């Protein structure tokens, strides 16, 4: 998504090295995706679902 839009930055965070961050976002299982510190996506979703969730769109759109 990041290469597709200049508005999006995508970071892969190694949770055991950045435990403060992992704790802040209550990461108990991976992968866990956090968007703008507020949207949380647990697990690996199929692409259409992930893109919608990351964009803050309802799943049915």
């Amino acid at each position, binding site marked *: *998504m990041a*290469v*597709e*839009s200049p*508005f999006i930055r995508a*970071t892969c*965070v190694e949770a055991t090295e950045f435990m403060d961050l992992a704790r802040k976002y209550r990461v108990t299982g991976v992968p866990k995706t*956090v968007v*703008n510190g507020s949207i949380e996506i647990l697990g690996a979703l199929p692409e259409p679902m992930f*893109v919608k969730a990351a964009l803050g769109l309802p799943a049915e759109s």
Partner: protein
Amino acid sequence: MSLLSEQDRQTVRDHLAAISHPVKLLFFTQTFGAPDTVAIAKQVLDELVSLNDRISQEEVNLVLDRGRAAQYGVDAVPAVALLRGEEDTRMRFMGAPAGYEFMSLIEAVILAGTDDSGLTPESKALIAEHAKEPRDISVFVTPT
């Protein structure tokens, strides 16, 4: 000493062959107080750079080059930002990209080095229509 077996090196080399743009790995590090993972990250990047002539790396010291680190939104080490030529692809890795994350790094390098994001037309359309403000997507992973 190489991290990968010669067979694995060839497999990765084959994957990377698709790259047509120069890819620069900006490696953020620091001289004092750096975690041990910085050395691991360096090893991984050295290995990756050795597998394709279009991939290069540049070290940026978080403390000495604070401005440049801030430019890329990096405030901790080790971190990697991927550039296509000199252009920020907005892809980042925080922590040593070892284990499974190494595969993600290779995928990211291929994304940076080619022209297709690999997303479906529907996804691209959604992004074009709805990504209108800065969006920071952080994916937490573990090395296993």
